[in-house]
């Protein structure tokens, strides 16, 4: 029971059926919430458990729920699942949805009960065809078993969960752009405040949570706050899916306690670097987090420690940089993605990212000028948090600015004419 999120997942990654799910206590949390707990009790439990958002920002989930207006006058409310997993290097939600879809459905149901929403949407990345099929299947099972629908388990509470498959933009992972997209509008973020809890989907109070976040909820309700807090190794509670990709021996995904050191992930779980490669650095939480170095290997993977080291826990799925991959080209690859995925709403992101790409392309093509590195540094700074409308550009700036900090000689090497095309 130290790996609640993945406990049911079968070795062949086939979907856990309703019966399988129930065998290990599935939907007990849902039944308990409906029978024994008031909505506020659920919110308090999630708050006390210390669950923080697993989508990247780490906002305390219970606090988010408590900001939703309660009572008769609050009117229509929604729960929206952010399943638009598009962060470069991230594939954790996909596993949870493909292999154990009922766990997510139960989490959504409990969240909906907590905020008293009778409608929920799962906003799913368009390319996740298998997740879509398995979620549809699980939703149908849950409906016929009476876990969804009208007067669920005789409680008087109604809930319908709809699956919406995205048309495919990275920006839809930004929760307010997701809401716009779900409404059929252009996928551009909204200004905050007002937060979705006040004015979200169709202007109604809405909670948007990441898939993995919600998958934690049934376990908290079923097993209690103390149990959950005890799962964490460091300052944060619970377990988390951590991933490693790059030139390691066994790239993959593992459920481990929050606060597991980076070294455990890379050296034990992923089996260390492939033969002939050494570790130069890593993006700890996906493409939009800052590079960290081998010297950071003993840091725990939790929100505070990563922040302190100058990066972010992000999605907890790290991308490893080896010594035979050019960090400049790796950053260029990332920046092309971010420039492509800019929604076009605010100036620094829309026009700044293509400029970054232009400079990096010039650099690797041997057209770089010495002042370009300072310019790249300046552009990364100008696209920092608060300067842009949403977090896309600051996320794009993170690998760029940290690469300039840690791997500056690699950039400078491109400035020397003859060596432009060659990498060490």
């Amino acid at each position: 029971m130290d790996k609640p999120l993945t406990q049911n997942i079968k070795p062949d990654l086939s979907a856990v059926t309703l019966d399988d799910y129930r065998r290990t206590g599935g939907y007990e949390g849902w039944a308990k919430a409906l029978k024994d707990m008031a909505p506020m009790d659920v919110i308090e439990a999630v708050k006390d458990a210390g669950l923080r958002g697993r989508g990247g920002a780490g906002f305390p989930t219970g606090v988010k729920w408590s900001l939703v207006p309660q009572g008769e006058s609050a009117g229509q409310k929604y729960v929206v699942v952010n399943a638009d997993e598009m962060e470069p290097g991230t594939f954790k939600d996909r596993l949870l949805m493909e292999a154990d879809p009922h766990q997510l459905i139960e989490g959504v149901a409990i969240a909906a009960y907590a905020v008293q929403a009778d409608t929920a949407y799962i906003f799913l990345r368009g390319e996740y065809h298998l997740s879509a099929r398995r979620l549809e299947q699980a939703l149908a099972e849950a409906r016929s078993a009476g876990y969804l629908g009208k007067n669920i388990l005789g409680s008087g509470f109604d809930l319908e969960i709809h699956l919406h498959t995205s048309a495919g933009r990275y920006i839809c992972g930004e929760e307010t752009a997701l809401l716009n997209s779900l409404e059929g509008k252009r996928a551009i973020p909204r200004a905050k405040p007002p937060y979705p809890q006040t004015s979200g989907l169709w202007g109604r109070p809405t909670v948007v949570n990441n898939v993995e976040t919600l998958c934690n909820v049934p376990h908290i309700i079923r097993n209690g706050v103390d149990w959950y807090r005890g799962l964490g190794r460091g300052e944060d509670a619970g377990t988390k899916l951590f991933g490693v990709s790059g030139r390691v021996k066994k790239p993959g995904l593992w459920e481990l306690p929050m606060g597991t050191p980076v070294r455990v992930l890379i050296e034990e779980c992923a089996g260390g670097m492939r033969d002939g490669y050494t570790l130069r650095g890593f993006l700890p939480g996906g493409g939009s987090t800052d590079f960290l170095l081998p010297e950071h290997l003993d840091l725990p993977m939790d929100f505070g420690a990563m922040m302190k080291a100058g990066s972010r826990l992000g999605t907890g799925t790290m991308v490893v940089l080896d010594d035979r991959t050019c960090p400049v080209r790796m950053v260029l690859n990332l920046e092309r993605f971010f420039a492509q995925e800019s929604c076009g709403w605010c100036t620094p992101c829309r026009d700044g990212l293509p400029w970054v790409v232009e400079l990096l392309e010039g650099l690797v093509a041997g057209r770089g000028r010495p002042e370009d590195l300072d310019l790249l540094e300046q552009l990364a700074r100008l696209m920092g948090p608060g300067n842009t409308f949403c977090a896309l550009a600051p996320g794009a700036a993170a690998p760029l600015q940290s690469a300039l900090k840690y791997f500056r000689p690699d950039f400078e090497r491109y400035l020397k004419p003859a060596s432009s095309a060659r990498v060490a």
Partner: protein
Amino acid sequence: MANITIDGQTHEVEAGDNLLKICLSLGLDLPYFCWHPALGSVGACRQCAVVQYRDESDTHGRLVMACMTPVTDGLRVSLEAPEAREFRASVIEFLMTNHPHDCPVCEEGGECHLQDMTVMTGHTFRRYSGLKRTHRNQYLGPFINHEMNRCIACYRCVRLYRDYSGGRDLDVFASRNKVYFGRFEDGVLESEFSGNLVEVCPTGVFTDRTFSAHYVRKWDLQHAPSVCVHCGVGCNTSPGERYGTLRRIVNRYNGEVNGYFLCDRGRFGYGFVNSERRIREPMLRGEPVSGETALTHLQGLLGGHTIGIGSPRASLEANFALRELVGAEHFYAGLAQGEASLAAAILEVLRHWPVHVPSLSEVEQADAVLALGEDVANTAPRLALALRQSVRNRAFERADRLKIPRWQDAAVREAAQDDKSPLFVATPSATRLDDIAEAIYRGTPEAIARLGFAIARRIDTNAPAVSDLPPEDALLAERIGDSLAAAARPLIVSGIACGSLATVRAAANIALALSNRREGGAIDLCYVAPECNTLGLAMMDGRSVQEAFAAAKTRDVNTVIILENDLYRRADGGAVDSFFNGTRHVVVVDHIRHGTAAKAQLLLPGSTFAETEGTLVSFEGRAQRFYSVMPGSGEIRDSWRWLADAGAKRWANVDALTAACAAAFPEFGPIRHAAPPAGFRIEGEKIPRQPHRYSGRTAMNAHRDVHEPKPPDDPDSALAFSMEGASVEVPPALLPFVWAPRWNSNQQAVNKFQDEVGGALRGGDPGVRLLESPEMPEPRWFDEVPSCLRDETRWRAIPLYHVFGSEELSVLSPPLAERLSAAYAALHPEDAEKLGVAEFLAVRLNERLIRLPLRLEPSLPRGAVGLSAGLPGLLRTDFPAWIAIETGRGEP
């Protein structure tokens, strides 16, 4: 109030507003793009960045966008902090990575907000060395050019066109740095407010295509404060002239009237001033004569019985001069019979009933609206735009409850979704307000009037009852009545163009019923007047063209003097012809050749609005002064001067005439204060009509005379046809154009002329209201509720109006003429089928049979024939109520 600190200076300002607006209102130069006082904040462009500090000890601060920052007590910010300045310059640098360096050939140059902001932020050196993205441009119709490469993606165009104006066919496509603002395919922009794109676009993506045809830089245009002559709303305009031709019209801000926006008829309808159809010299029996000969001849005609016919498109002064020339008892207002009787009924209500005619800014405050009978979108488009804003009041209330500031535009719209304040539209056929209406009613004018009477009765049971109302109409009347009664600021809109006295009276009854529920408080009531001075002329004298014809039958007329009026638009052609046949001498003073001018023995070249001064009274009862943009060329004279010079009364200047007019009609007393007098001076100097950068003064006449000519005198105003004079602290009514150091674009420079940005002009918005404090004897209900009997032998004629086409002068503008259709008749498809007509319809108007192309209009009531009003081929707007259809004669 809140005390805030900006760069160490403390200011006491309104709490809750956004910091950008506050900074601009304080006179600080803070660059911005995506914000607009009428459109609110969305935080897209990131141009208005400032540094905000937590408290006095915080020296680091953080960047925030001023437009998205609510002002709270103790707020500390810096505009000048190096990181703020660097960031603002960098935003321009980002925008410039794609913006072409085509200022020398861009028509926005010289009044470009992007140029201004670029200079203001200090971005001067280009570091981006890559390729610029390019776009394909679109054909958007005769009004607007499209040059997408210049786009800086501020999103103001789509927010104005879609969110503010309700347009559907302009949108933003694609994403990242490829965002594209245009139509889904090439084609004419549908919205009648498309011209505002020209001013709202901060750069040269959308420019004025009519201006392109004879383009000059803004600084080379001579301007004057003017008032639009193409409907009764009285929007303030700033027309520009060069080399004797009127080149364009831009908005002139008036916080109470048009604010920042005009309709396309007003903006692009100016071409008649330059038209081939201008009357440029006096003509006596078809031969050109000198002005003096013409005047002498006119004086000779005045001996016998002389009558004068005035015009609702001429100024009060010109009409009054005619009235003085022929005598009050021989002066006819020149309105059609139907218009005149409706105008008289309206004036009775406005003068004596507990009603208040709201300004457009007050219209926007209404929280429940009933449009009764009038197709406002076609007869008074700018009013329709104000009504479109009024339905947002419920959104604002919801935003208040959610603590979302009203200026946070996208958030307010998101929170409100489709929740709107009620607008009820009861018109004979579909209107362009239907899309925001809570309920729509279609019926004949009688049915609409009956609905109106029933609404009044629902609100106040003392109002006359309506018998035999269909049950569904009765339910609707209850719904509308209850909605209006529950509103804090209900508004009733009707008008003259609906052609139904009963409707006008029903609207008044509703207002009275509402007033009775609030112990006599004045209720907002708008009656749309079709022309720029209909209301003013009606206040002067209500007698119609038809009454002139009738009088001519009882006493032979020696001479009729017709002022700026084509009688064929006012009366049946046969009646006009027989009037002319019975009149010995026909004298016409006008600026445009038309059917009536063709009948004149003596034709005198009068002035358009661009060449004369005068006062117009809008539907609001607001008297506003307009000024000549340029002197009349050649023999063109002020219309009033021809009339004044012909008679014994010699007024020294237009002020003297205005004063005489005010003295003759006590109600006109305030018009003398509509604008400062001709003798007004600033530090002893007149106000220049030309910007101080006006070029070519010494060269533009050099081919005629190398000596620089003295600028023409202007005895009629405090304005000078010159670039010299005083241009600071100009009273708003005399502002020819807006310009301020560092602010060259019209929509933005006006910030510098307001104490509160988006509020009144400093010194007060121009115009004086004439019907301000009505005497209120006990009004008596109008109790003639019309019956709604169908006449099986005749058809109810219903005038159908067109924003582009129904107005006389604007259709002479070639770009606008491209938007016209020919005259037509319309029937409900089932009526057409019953009659067996498909392509043409023959109707008998008076004794004449007219064959018109047929349109099928499913929104028309059964038993009605819609007739296009004012379109070429069927000029009259004043149809008989009932007409006959000749079947079997329509098809070719």
